């Protein structure tokens, strides 16, 4: 008894350490399906995240008061600048839509199936794991908001990570720079595929690219869609350094497009749809038509108006030609007060990526792009597609949307 009393502290230390080592061994042995530590994690998250939520809410509210009421200087100038940018982009899109049409025709010939993001949910980042070895953040959306594990998380700048664990009203997002993360990646110019991984130091590298391939710094990196989590074509980042790696592979360092150390709002991709690519039926838009729409002094073509009348369609005047647009979507941002800075990236701009264009409808996006587009939408509304006056309106494809 004396011995037990004398070495009581040491015995307790050994006991506590043994219990924890045993617990570690059980966790290592178990598969990811069964999580023996779930209860501890729920308690810990339930203790810490309410404080984080309250603090973020207070911070956001204060910030909103400042930005909405006091800090309005320069808004008009910014508005003018944005309008000018829209004008330029509308013309730019005419050129891009022709490329997209061509891509769609080729895809249809090859019976391509394409993925596109049809529903996202805005979420606010409320906390981090607090460890350099675990690069993950908590968001203020959980099971009650329809979040599920393995959903993609993105921002307007690029991809962020995936949902790893889901709790009642929060979720844990594993960032792409964590060492346990893996994303299918595609180099934009060379079209080489590899696996994007995080390193213990928090850097992002692409693995499994052979050393005889020519990869240059500055090349864009996109998602390949091979991981089954991120749809193809989302912007990941830019190659910053290429060096010889081990075992005949290149060591390609990537700077993520999204600033992973300063995340505030993110979008969780809650629904990805897949459909067969269809060739354009209506013909491409012309730059002159876009200009005609904008300049009231340019009269519409009289033949088109006559044909439109014969066809019995309600022809918009002046004519606003469109590219193929199986569905037209009016994006509405949802979420809990979290406002994403902008729509997610035009991941494949120049390769058929959809972009908002000025047509007869107030807002439209081309949903049949070869690449995917992340939109800050939750419940897309379908508008009738504007038609050329000479063309009979065709049946709209069913739009699979399930708003929350």
């Amino acid at each position, binding site marked *: 008894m004396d011995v037990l009393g004398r070495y*009581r*502290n040491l015995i*307790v*230390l050994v006991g*506590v*350490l043994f219990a*924890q*080592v045993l*617990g*570690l*061994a059980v*966790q*290592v042995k178990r598969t990811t399906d069964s999580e023996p*530590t779930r209860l*501890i*994690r729920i*308690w*810990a*998250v339930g*203790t*810490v995240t309410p*404080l*984080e939520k309250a*603090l973020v809410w207070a911070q956001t509210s204060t910030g909103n008061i400042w930005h909405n009421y006091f800090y309005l200087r320069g808004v008009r100038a910014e508005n003018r600048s944005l309008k000018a940018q829209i004008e330029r982009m509308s013309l730019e899109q005419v050129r891009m839509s022709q490329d997209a049409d061509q891509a769609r025709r080729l895809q249809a010939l090859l019976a391509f199936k394409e993925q596109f993001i049809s529903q996202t949910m805005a979420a606010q*980042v409320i*906390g*981090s*794991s*607090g*460890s*350099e*070895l*675990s690069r*993950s*953040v*908590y968001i203020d959306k959980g099971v009650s908001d329809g979040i599920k594990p393995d959903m993609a998380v993105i921002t307007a700048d690029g991809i962020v990570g995936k949902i*790893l*664990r889901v709790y009642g009203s929060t979720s*844990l997002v*594993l960032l792409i720079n*964590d*060492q*346990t993360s893996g994303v299918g990646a595609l180099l934009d110019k060379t079209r080489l595929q590899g696996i994007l991984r995080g*390193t*213990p*130091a928090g850097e992002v590298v692409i693995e499994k690219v052979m050393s005889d391939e020519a990869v240059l710094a500055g090349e864009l990196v996109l998602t390949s869609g091979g991981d089954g989590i991120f749809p193809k074509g989302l912007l990941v980042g830019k190659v910053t350094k290429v060096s010889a790696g081990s075992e005949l592979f290149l060591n390609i360092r990537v700077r993520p497009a999204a600033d992973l*150390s*300063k*995340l505030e709002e993110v979008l969780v991709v809650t629904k990805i749809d897949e459909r067969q690519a269809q060739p354009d039926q209506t013909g491409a838009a012309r730059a002159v038509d876009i200009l005609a729409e904008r300049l009231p002094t340019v009269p519409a073509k009289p033949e088109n108006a006559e044909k439109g009348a014969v066809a019995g369609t309600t022809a918009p005047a002046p004519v606003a030609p469109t590219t193929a647009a199986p569905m037209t979507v009016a994006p509405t941002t949802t979420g809990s007060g979290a406002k994403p800075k902008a729509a997610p990236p035009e991941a494949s701009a120049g390769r058929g990526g959809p972009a908002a264009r000025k047509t007869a409808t107030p807002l439209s996006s081309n949903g049949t792009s070869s690449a995917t587009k992340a939109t800050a939408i939750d419940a897309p509304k379908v508008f009738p597609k504007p038609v050329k006056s000479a063309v009979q309106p065709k049946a709209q494809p069913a739009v699979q949307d399930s708003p929350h």
Partner: protein
Amino acid sequence: MAITYTSGEQVEVYRFSIPATILIPLAAVFLQAWLPLRFPFFTIFDLPLLVTIGFATARRSPLAGLLTGSLIGILQDALTHQLIGLYGIAKTIVGFGASSLGIKLDVENAGARFLLTIFFYVVHKVVYFMIARGLAGLRMAWSWPHEFLSCGANALLGVLVFMLLDRVKQRT
């Protein structure tokens, strides 16, 4: 006033109120999770470790030190996506060691606290590294400049944390 007698020296033993015992570790874990979002450089600090050392040296009870370290570590583990027990084991050892050392040394002055924090920061890092690599099979990065910077920064912050803990500790 209860006094412990070790090697002929009289060392004062302190205790903390129940709210302080619960809220200070919770606040440390919360700040460790929240501050890096606003100030990314804050990841070099380990506030829960500093609180573990601070509590252990003030109480000077190995049993209380190891249990406090164990609970703080497990709470910290639970917020990560890694296995539970990595921080738990490391902080258990630090809690036990700090309280055992606290019995033998005078840790009331800032210099001693600075050195003590450096020592236990290294112990914590080494134990964590070994467990993460050996038991959990994680790849670990070791950068000497980063570790030196982190060690110094934690030691400086540790002196401040100890001063704050001095305000809430009570003589037994």
